[in-house]
């Protein structure tokens, strides 16, 4: 990981320098304040042309510095004479750059052994392929269900996790309804893999799957998602068009039939929260409505978004509390506590309208009004530092902590049949 950061930084340096022949990158670890002071003095030596990427502030912290070829001897002699520990991270920068640098970047799509790399963000094709792989590798547990087509005619596929039975009580999870929220798709596919890995090992999950099914739609807005890869990384809506309408797309999380068209949605087609011409007008939403309605036995619905670090329940369209508000509040509290235990990340929780903002025509409001008592929506990491552009390095930690929260909700659903 560190190495990759270094490689990435080197590419940036192409802008400043034409050749890096013989340049080295050193990792220096000062042991005490005096050594740090020496490094600061070293840095100030203009003629050495040192490029410190990180300046250590406390003993034990490391510094990375690119040292031009002509200065290497002088720097090493200095470090050794002061007893400052260092190691050579990169022997010859130019040799590195001569290789296929693209491959070395953080965004490696495949690990060396050809397996799906859960630590990276993926395209629609790659995620679809991994879904197929899971279904093929675990035929007794996973199957792929097609629930319809998107506006641009892409298939909408749902993973079904089931150990048998017929029309069992089930849990629905969706990610990616807003296409720019890449951390949600990444969390979704990681969670799918987690489920197949943990069935039979994790006591709680095994109990859940022995009695209930899990449905997971990972790319709930495939057209939007493809668009975030091809043209506009910050695209939110779907890609539906209408004759005579200048702007494209409907906010799929404002298109549901619950408080449709109310506050917190917009009737301007150019707006990011445009609710569409009518409730369920969008094929992506209609497909889910049809599926869940026909199934008739969905007992929990979890819709995953980013960002803000929140776990919320209905309503979004009104401040009025739902009948089982107390139960949902306590369940959210437990789920968020479980999440916190993993990496110390703090979520806040409550109803959507009182925690985040008023929003009408949203998924969980519809689900709740259709009898799904345990309806939750997540807003995953972070709280604004990176926002939608959450670094890939945070995918696994985010997915790990979210899993604990999901499991808490699923377990409660299992133990409270209705």
């Amino acid at each position, binding site marked *: 990981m560190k190495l990759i950061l270094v490689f990435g930084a080197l590419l940036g340096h192409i802008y400043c320098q034409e050749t890096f022949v013989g340049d080295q990158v050193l990792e220096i670890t000062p042991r005490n304040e005096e050594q740090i002071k020496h490094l600061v003095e070293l840095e100030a030596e203009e003629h050495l042309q040192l490029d410190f990427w990180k300046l250590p502030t406390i003993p034990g912290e490391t510094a990375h510095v690119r040292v031009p070829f002509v200065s290497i001897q002088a720097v090493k002699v200095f470090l050794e004479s002061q007893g400052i520990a260092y190691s050579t991270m990169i022997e010859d920068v130019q040799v590195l750059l001569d290789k296929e640098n693209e491959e070395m970047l953080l965004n490696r799509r495949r690990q060396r052994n050809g397996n799906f790399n859960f630590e*990276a963000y993926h395209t629609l094709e790659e995620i679809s392929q991994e879904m197929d792989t899971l279904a093929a590798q675990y035929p007794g547990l996973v199957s792929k269900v097609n629930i319809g087509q998107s506006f641009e005619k892409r298939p909408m596929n749902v993973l079904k996790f089931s150990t048998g039975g017929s029309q069992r009580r089930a849990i629905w999870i969706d990610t990616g309804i807003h296409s720019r929220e890449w951390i949600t798709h990444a969390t979704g596919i990681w969670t799918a893999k987690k489920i197949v890995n943990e069935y039979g090992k994790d006591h709680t999950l095994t109990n859940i799957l022995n009695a209930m099914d899990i449905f997971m739609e990972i790319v709930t807005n495939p057209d939007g998602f493809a668009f975030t890869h091809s043209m506009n*990384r910050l695209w939110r809506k779907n890609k539906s068009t209408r004759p005579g309408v200048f702007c494209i797309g409907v906010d799929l999380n404002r298109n549901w039939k619950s408080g449709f068209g109310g506050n917190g949605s917009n009737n301007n087609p*150019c*707006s990011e*929260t445009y609710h569409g011409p009518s409730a369920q007008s969008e094929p992506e939403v209609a497909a889910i409505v049809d599926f869940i309605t026909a199934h008739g036995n969905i007992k929990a619905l979890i819709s995953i978004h980013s960002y803000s670090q929140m776990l919320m329940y209905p309503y979004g369209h009104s401040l009025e509390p739902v009948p089982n508000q107390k139960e949902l*509040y306590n369940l959210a509290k437990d789920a968020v506590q479980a999440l916190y235990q993993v990496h110390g990340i703090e979520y806040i929780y409550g109803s959507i309208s009182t*925690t*985040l903002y008023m929003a009408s025509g949203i998924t969980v409001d519809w689900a709740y009004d259709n009898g799904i008592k345990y309806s939750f929506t997540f807003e995953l990491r972070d709280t604004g530092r990176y926002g*939608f552009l959450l670094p890939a390095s945070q995918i696994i930690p985010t997915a790990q902590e979210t899993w604990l929260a999901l499991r808490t909700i699923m377990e409660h659903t299992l133990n409270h049949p209705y």
Partner: protein
Amino acid sequence: MPPAVSTPPAPRPGVPRPSALLLALALALCLAVPGLQAAGPGPGPGPGSPGVPGAPPPGLLRQAARAALHFLNFRAGSPSGLRVLAAVLRGRAAVDARRTCRVDLEFTAERYDPEVADGRLGRCSARVVFRHQKPRPAVNVTCTRFMETSRSRREDFLLYKRAKRLRAPLGATSIPNSHGWIDPSLRPIWDLAFLGSSYVLWERTTQTLHYYMAQLSSVNQWKTNEDAIDFDYMVLLHEFSTQEIIPCRIHLVWYPGKPLKVKYHCQELHTAQEGSGTEEGSAVAPTQPNNF
């Protein structure tokens, strides 16, 4: 089990607090929220959760905290001293007849740069006054220091030197890229971009709208041959609660230890914002912005 952090219950609307009797004639207190002792770290219920009747509108305290920090970041003019909100500790809000909303609050802040955010929190207290649905809230804020002044000066100077040696990629860019990656060598550009954006983010914040810097989308100019860094760039701001992406062009001039100079122009939106007549702000910042 970490205790919850929450905004505490409020008296019913129309009932003035005993200590505010003097102001009772001028102020109709409908959002007064007596302070609660600060709780420890850990997740907590949002404002307005059950058991907290009459609490300020969702996130008002957080809103005020953000505005205060953007203002502080701008005034400090220190890219290595940039701070973001960690948690709101306590606060109260009061609305007067003209619907001016005054928020007094205490909160914790941490360093913006996640690489060096070592969990150390600074404590801040602020008074933020929002004029009814208008931007440019008045801010009075003080925070405990994260580190000695000499060290932050040193870090700023280090950044300055790195910036001077850097030949920034001119033209359209994506920092971070789609995968959230910021090249470490380009980090000074990102930090300065956020510093400049702080002015914009503060000015645009209202009671109900707040912003994050989503991406640096172009570098129009990066002049380092003179003493100061002269940086002209474009950012994409993410607006809550409308979810809009707003492109803003920002031009800053920065030298360590000197007040930051910022000019900006944000593109007009296709949709009208709630309660505010104009979507674009074009301002030349005085070196001593109003602070009332």
